[in-house]
């Protein structure tokens, strides 16, 4: 938890070396409600700062998920395909993608993000 950084579009990022693990914040999952589907991208796809790399569906809404970093996707969490509820149950364990980072956005600390959400 302590190592997590956040974007203003409500994604969390965990930086490990040149890799970044990305997921949806607790605030985001709560706003979306029960997530019923995650439209996973493919390994090898390029992502760009501020651009959508996937969308998640609740029963009556669909929301884009924006990348806080630029780079290439090296892993996707395939568990989410059959268990999208993992994002609701444990948002900080339920990573969506891992990216080999070429560039990253300015990100918020946990405290800054909590303040931002208020």
């Amino acid at each position: 938890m302590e190592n997590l950084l956040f974007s203003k579009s409500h994604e969390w990022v965990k930086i490990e070396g040149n890799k970044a693990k990305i997921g949806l914040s607790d605030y985001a999952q709560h706003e979306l409600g029960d997530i019923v589907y995650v439209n996973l991208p493919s390994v090898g796809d390029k992502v760009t700062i501020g651009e959508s790399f996937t969308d998640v569906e609740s029963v009556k809404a669909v929301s884009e998920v924006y990348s806080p970093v630029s780079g290439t996707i090296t892993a996707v969490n395939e568990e989410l395909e059959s268990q999208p509820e993992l994002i609701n149950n444990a948002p900080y364990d339920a990573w969506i993608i891992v990216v080999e980072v070429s560039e990253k956005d300015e990100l918020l600390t946990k405290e800054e993000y909590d303040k931002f959400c208020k």
Partner: protein
Amino acid sequence: MSKYTPHTKEDLEVMLKAVGAVSLDELYKDAPKELMVEELKLNEGMSQMAVEKAFQKITAQNKVYDTILRGCGAYDHYIPAPVSALIGRSEFLTAYTPYQPEISQGILQSIFEYQTLMCELSGMDVSNASVYDVGTAVGESIIMCCERKNKVIVAGAVNPQTVAVAKTYCKAGNTQIVEIQPKNGIVDIEALKAAIDTDTACVIAQSPNFFGLIEDMGVLAQISHEKGAKFVYIFNPIAATVLKTPKECGADIAVAEGQPLGMPLSYGGAYLGILTCDEKMIRRMPGRVVGQTVDKNGKTAYVLTLQAREQHIRREKALSSICSNQALCALTAVIYLSLVGKEGMRQVADACVSKAHYLAQQLSAVKGIKIKYQGEFFNEFTVETDKYNKDATKALDKAGILGGLKINDTDSIWCVTEKADKATLDGVVSIFKEVK
């Protein structure tokens, strides 16, 4: 004139007063004055009785045939009497899309049964709640397949009505469409192999095809998949009870015109677009879908589901704008299949095949007539003749028979269903024998 507005003079006074207007016209004060219509160029209103009479004059100009030996996308099958009685029930007829599951379980369940039955016919994993007709089903299939590629191939003798609609959908999406002309009535395999490439999103073929011939769809699916293209199978729902299923042939999407399942010919509509596909394509499937779930007390319930694919949520990111289905036509198909049933459908298919082959054999014995293609057919076949001229048409017409559809000077496509009896078919043969 007849009106359906219940307002009495007193109602009008009370209601206008309540809304603070002196006249009905005042309610339109937001509309610019110059737009107000003086008088519509329409007829005076009529009583219901007068309207019925007016329509009798109109229908008198139509010719109703006792026997219809023409298909080509619209088929004259027997419709059991309970079908129209049941679909005419107010609760089905006058309901909207079942948005409120608590009071719409009847319609939702009928769609769930429909989806099950369509999967049974095609063998595919999933079905939506239907689209407008087979043409638009193919159009929507093209959109489903064009995810990263932008070229589609229509292989062989697909019904020209369907191809025409497919072309419009391709034009809309700036998708290239290539038609492979048939050879000996069926798909020209070598031409298909030459045309297909790794940019091809899908191959579309029909069996039984426009000429009535049964194609080797398994081979076409294999050729498609070798190049990474999807295979779209256009099937006939009556023939599907007998022939190798689209799923068994390797189809990714299977679509059909559902009209033969209990819908009258009605000059081409309203019909039913059957759309079924492989489970992997479910998120790209357009239109309404009904799913089974439970209510808050754990009771089995049905509900519109997977709605986040659709236009009202996804707006311009939706793959299709379709938001209705042909619910009453889907219900018709379900009731038809339930009434005719497993054994009845076997009989219907058997009668179609046997009677069509009987007529084909009898006609081919007439001098100057031959069956154009050698391939196996279901209940439609192409006749080549030097005799099918105006006299034959006239004689058939006089006998109350709508003969095959002429597609050029010599060829015509004939269709026989369970409704035609032997005596009538023999009559057709005699007419061709007599016409010199």
